């Protein structure tokens, strides 16, 4: 199982703050998981943005990051704190 969270503009665009995916073994990397979500079409195209950021287990990472059962991942737009 992989827990996925969406934040800020993405959360609003998707109308969803998170979900659980039960087929963790299908995703070798975070990008595999993203491609799976993009294939849903429609509003999910927001995850194709160039400046998308992502995290695995609450640490920033690249889309090439490998995934494992039990991971918690997050997708979000460029951060704007400070």
């Amino acid at each position, binding site marked *: 199982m992989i827990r996925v969270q969406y934040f800020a503009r993405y959360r609003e665009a998707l109308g969803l703050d998170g979900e659980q995916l039960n087929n963790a073994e299908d995703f070798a990397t975070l990008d595999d998981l993203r491609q799976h979500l993009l294939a849903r079409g429609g509003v999910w195209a927001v995850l194709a943005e160039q400046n998308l950021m992502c995290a695995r287990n609450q*640490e*920033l990472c690249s889309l090439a990051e490998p995934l494992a059962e039990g991971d918690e991942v*997050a997708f979000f737009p460029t951060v*704007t*704190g*400070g």
Partner: protein
Amino acid sequence: MNIRVQTLAFDPGAELNALHAANLGIGAVVGFVGYVRDFNEGREVGGMFLEHFPGMTEKSLGKIAEEAGQRWPLLNIEIIHRVGRLEPGEPIVFVGTSSAHRQAAFDACAFVMDYLKTRAPFWKKEDTAEGQRWVEGRCSDQAAAERWQKD
């Protein structure tokens, strides 16, 4: 090291003083305060909401503070970041660093802010006359963070 993510307001002057009171070996304290402006990207801003990623936010700020402590001989470091509803003129963020000498405190403070702006999971949503809008990341913030990776 003190990291706080909170909805409550804070007093930047009191935070700055507290950084020095802790240690008489401190020769320099540098403080940065970021405020909510009433104008951004050509529009008046009536206030904002700051969203964050609870858990990751505290972790990432801690990691940035730790890295600053590895790069410079700091005696103390404090990061306060507010979340939730904020009005123009209110402080959003405080970064305070203390050291025996000024340069380490200056540099570490700038480093923490540059990294915080590009790596800590906060998102601003502003209120304007045309409605609410998400603030977009700036290339200049990315460039500011990258300058610390050159050496």
